[in-house]
């Protein structure tokens, strides 16, 4: 292997955009992927690789270092090119045989992917990543999706970049072109690892108390797809745990711990009835904040609007909440049970599926909601409306169920005592029989 020097850049400069990107990819791969010797690339080589990526692949800078931008068509072209490359399509006859073909192919591919999109990726390149993954989903490009799944896990499913990616994908498939959703149905079977990580991220994205007035529910299409995924593939949520990352990662990398979507999705299910009541209450109370001069961000608006629509549709059929949540909840519980008592024989049942902390984080929003509802109620003494009461009951039941199943299946890890103390704080809420039983069952006397 001849050493790659600065003169490489000169030679790359001779060709125009699509061609130079193709060649540059090969060069970068050569630089980043450790050769047979197993020597990791030197810092100098990595720097060069970065420069080549910036100048010739993503065309973020020109030869003098000034920033520039590809046209949209060129961006699409680049995405297609990357897809093709990762899928192992050979470019012309003159190109060297890609090292990613072969037994070591996955590792090399992942290495290249991780180098192309490092955690410090710029905004434009993140955009390109979204486009690439989106295209990969459409074209069912398994290699890219696999690499993305690993990339997500390595960066952490709740990191900013991953959230950005998930947001972009949701926008593409669930907001803008809901018709394209059909392409997602076999995604769990195609790329389970990616799907599982995507689920985790999405669950975090929508489940978190985003604004002071509550939670942003996911778009209806997304909820539907997620429900279908989870109920059709009981082991999907565990996919990230199952995969052994170490061989797939670049040399010297440490695999990051996987996060399952269980807790996040449980949160959806628990909070959704509460959200439904506060929404309907708000609707009854008239429009609260007209955004006449408010400088609110457009994106937030879009999201809110779509969620509103989804919920309103749900309201019309069933006044309380979307039935999909029940299905999702059931599917989640079944997944947990399936893990311990597999219907099909499996060798490895996975432990440490749900973090206790993660589960316990559901308690706080419920409490906040309760306090707010009580404060808002006009009646004296302050108590919940019938509707809110029912919603709370449902929410607590779901919470109780999740906790019970998680504990019973022995899937939870972490300080269980903490979870129970947290649950204890719900005592001043209207009593939930199930929750009490759960508490009683698992309460181990301290003395």
């Amino acid at each position, binding site marked *: 292997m001849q050493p790659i020097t600065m003169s490489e850049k000169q030679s790359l400069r001779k060709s125009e955009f699509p061609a130079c990107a193709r060649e540059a990819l090969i060069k970068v791969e050569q630089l980043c992927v450790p050769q047979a010797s197993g020597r990791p690339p030197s810092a100098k080589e990595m720097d060069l690789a970065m420069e080549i990526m910036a100048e010739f692949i993503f065309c973020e800078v020109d030869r003098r270092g000034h920033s520039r931008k590809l046209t949209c*068509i060129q961006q699409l072209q680049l995405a297609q090119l990357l897809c093709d490359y990762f899928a192992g399509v050979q470019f012309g006859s003159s190109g060297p045989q890609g090292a990613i073909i072969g037994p070591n192919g996955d590792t090399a591919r992942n290495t290249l992917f991780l180098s192309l999109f490092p955690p410090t990726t710029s905004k434009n390149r993140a955009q390109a990543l979204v486009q690439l993954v989106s295209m990969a989903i459409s074209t069912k490009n398994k290699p890219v999706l696999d690499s993305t799944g690993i990339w997500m896990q390595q960066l952490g499913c709740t990191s900013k970049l991953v959230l950005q990616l998930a947001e972009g994908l949701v*926008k*593409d*498939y669930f907001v803008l072109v809901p018709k394209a959703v059909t392409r997602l149905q076999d995604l769990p079977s195609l790329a389970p690892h990616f799907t599982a990580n995507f689920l985790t991220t999405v669950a975090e994205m929508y489940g978190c108390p985003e604004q002071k007035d509550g939670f942003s529910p996911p778009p209806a299409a997304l909820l539907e797809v997620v429900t279908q995924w989870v109920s059709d593939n009981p082991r999907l949520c565990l996919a990230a745990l199952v995969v052994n990352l170490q061989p797939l990662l670049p040399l010297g990398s440490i695999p990051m711990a996987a996060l399952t979507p269980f807790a996040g999705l449980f949160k959806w299910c628990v909070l959704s009835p509460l959200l439904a009541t506060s929404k309907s209450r708000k609707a009854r109370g008239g429009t609260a904040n007209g*955004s006449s001069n408010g400088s609110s961000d457009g994106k937030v*608006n879009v999201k809110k609007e*779509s969620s509103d629509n989804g919920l309103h549709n749900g309201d019309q059929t069933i006044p309380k909440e979307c039935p999909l949540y029940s299905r999702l909840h059931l599917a989640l519980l079944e997944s947990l049970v399936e893990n311990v008592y597999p219907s099909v024989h499996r060798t490895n049942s996975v432990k440490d599926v749900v973090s206790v902390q993660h589960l316990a984080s559901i308690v706080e929003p419920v409490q906040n909601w309760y306090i707010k509802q009580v404060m808002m109620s006009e009646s004296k003494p302050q108590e919940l409306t019938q509707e809110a009461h029912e919603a709370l009951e449902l929410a607590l039941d779901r919470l109780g169920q999740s906790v019970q199943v998680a504990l019973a299946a022995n899937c939870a890890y972490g300080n269980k005592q903490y979870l129970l103390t947290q649950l204890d704080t719900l005592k001043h809420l209207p009593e939930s029989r199930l929750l009490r039983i759960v508490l009683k069952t698992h309460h181990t006397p301290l003395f």
Partner: protein
Amino acid sequence: MNPSMPPMMKGPDLMSELRSFISGATRSARKGHMDIGMARVALSLLKTLPASREAVLEYFCSLFDDIVGRYIENVEIASQKGSKDHEVSLSAQEETTIAEVHNVICDFVSSSPEAWAPIISKWSLQLLGELSSRYACRATHTGVLSESLQLWMSCRATRSLIDITTQCLSCLMNFDTESCINALLDTCVAHNPHFDWVVAHVGSCFPRTVMTRVLSCGLKDFCSNQQGPKAPKLNSVVQILGYLASSHSSDMRRALLQLFQWSLEKSKISDAVTIHQQNSTVPFLLQLANLSSTLLRSLSMDVLHTLTPKILSQLAEQSADWLAYYGGREAFQDLLVHLVLGCPTGAPTILALILDCAAPPSPKLIPTTPEEVIVQSNGQEFLELLLQELSLLLHQSDGNIPFLVSLRQELKTVLPLLLSPMRLRVQSALRLIGFMGLQSPSVFPIAVSYVLVKAETEEHLSVVAKLLENQASTNGNIRKANRTGLPIEHSNILQLGLEQALHKKDDKSSPVDLWKNLTTLLRWERSGKLTNCCQPVLKAIYSTIGTACSSLGSSVDPKLAHAVAETLVLALVQEPGENPTSVTPPSIQDALRLAHSTVSYFFMCLEDEGSKGFEGCQLACKLLSRLSLRSSAARSLALRTLLELALFHGPTHLLGAKELLNEEVLTAEETDIRLMDENLKQGLSWVLAQRHSSVFHAGVIGSGLRTLNIENTTSPVLIQRNIQLFLDAVRSCCVSSAILDPSTMEPGMPTLSLDTVISVSLLLVELISPDVMYNGLPWPDEDGCKATVERDCSIRRKLEQLPILWELLWFIALQRPALCYCSVLLRAVTATLIAQWSSCSQYRNPGLLSTTVKLLSLLALGQLLPSPLSSLRDVVHYLKPQEIVQVLQKCVWNYMRDNVPAPALFSRDSHGNMWRDSTQDLPGPQYTETMRLLMLANIEDLGELYAQLFDN
């Protein structure tokens, strides 16, 4: 990992589509080749491959660009060929492509507007912007908005784009107007001015929203980083708003008003940005108005009227930030002045506002706190600046100043300022009126008329004087500039103003005040207080004498009549020793009318028993005398009218007339006599009504007894007063022109004109004597009287009924020899007296006697009977009827018959008085003997007199 793996079943399909799209797109970008297949691929990608969205849209950009480019080429070719219309069709392929693209995009937008509309609207706006600025210079040469609108709307491609845009915007308008208007503005800024047609079109679709939003975006832009007038979007904002304002003016006004009101709101949640925006709203609006006159107009319609001093003080709290936008206080003031002068409407409101600040309308509001004092001083400063700028502009250019035009249209709001107690207000109003007068001189008369009608104090009236001065200077300017070529004289202005004031149908103002004000003015003019050489007030009054006459003559409003009379007296009556005026006196016609109405006025006053009536009569006398001196025609008319009214048609009872049922009444009752009824009457069949045979002294056969005279119920004192007043009036008419020049007047000279008195006596004859024949001076034989019995009776009866006649005769008698001309009357009385005395036996009728005495006194006074005959009146008291007959026949009648009472008997003395020298032509004994003998017969009573008369 093989491309042919089963899970990728659909993959290659999509991939190949993608590849063909990419190759096609990169190729077509270079070649400019349009391919419907490509477009379809792109559309299907858009539907199936979300990642390709941006690229597909970009591809459509070039697609549309191609199509529009071809379209423009065709248009150019067409226009070279000379065809006027833009009916250039696209190829069928292009049409279908556009239609398909349009459909797909619209489907997307309508399926989930919240998601797609922002993307698509941004895309379409950008594309439209690029297209229009790229081809603008090629296609539209004029740059007129309507033309480019037509050009672009007739192109299928751009039309579809616009359609897509509006659809997006209509989706967005509901919840995300902010960003979409921002996009619109940004594009507009980028492609100025070629993008205007898009904004115009879009704006007309949602005028209200677009306006409101454009305003708020503009405001944000305006106040971000204190950019102020340098804000990049400002021009676009102005253009868009200007365009929209012209077609949707009410919406525009509402939007502006909303924004303004918003700026005044004090919200509870006050974040710094909002407050900053609120504070910048007013400078922003002003800047808008500064840049566009259409907006200025809109602004001056609604927003302006919401301004009150209270709001101003509210604004003052914000104003700390304002100056920063304009670079200093002076620049800001300049801007404001400029804007105010440009206001096409609402000028009165502005003026009122400034004045309210500068000079509070009532003393109660005089500022006390330091802030208020500042407001006041600022207001005054601004007012001064405004006025100075106005004057500067007016003297520099001929152009109309909208502010003044508006003010002129609403002149009635300016006029009240003239009467304000605040000096500043008055002065400002005066100056403004002066400015307006430069352009339309008719303002002056209006102002003058207003003040004349409304003025209540002398200060108010002094405004008129100032107006006149003001106009004088204006006039000078006009002459210099030679603009109208027809300078209006002062008097003319006053005159026009007066006319307007008089004809103003305004029930609030009474014309009485107007005339009183005129009087004051005239008095000032008289006393030289008005520094004006040509006596405008007098001229004006003369010019309106017609109206004055009608007010004077009508008895509807006595107060008015008094006021008018006072004015007229002042105008017409020249005080002794005063220089004659240069003003042309009233025309004959006016003089005649005036004479007539003065007489009417006189009688109106006569009816008033109070002091007002008395004064009025005196005024009338003054007027009459003045008129008579001025014009003999007026004199004779006045006299005739006076007499006619006094004797017949006027309030004769006031002058002691005895009411009568005259013959006309009787005959009137009998007009409906039916012959059959008459025939049925018992009696002599040939006695017919109204024949001599049926009329008797005591009555008419068939009508019963003649009714006796009804006694006058007016109190004698009043009658006496009235008679005196009436005689005064007559005397006024007869006044001689000698009194005009008191220096030549000597004591003893006649103040009355003899000719006039003679004419009075002739008039009397004419009025009283029913015949025209035998009205001469000579007394005929006694037998001759038999022919004139009826006439004599008639004359006698009139004298009986109208005591005023005696008074008149008395008056005439004093002015010798005027009584000569009344000879016929005297003759008739004498004849009837003789007849009556002869029919009395022993009984001395007291009435008869008094008449006789009156007659004899009259004859004596008029020197028609010389001494000693002149003393007969003292004698007759002691005589028996037969003796009286004797005296009347022998002494009076015969003397008069033989000595025709002619003016020739009188001679003029050194003072010009006529006198009959009784010592020269003593009556012969044939006339005096009877008298003497009868006196002797009654010597016990008449001894003393006898001695005086005959014992010499």
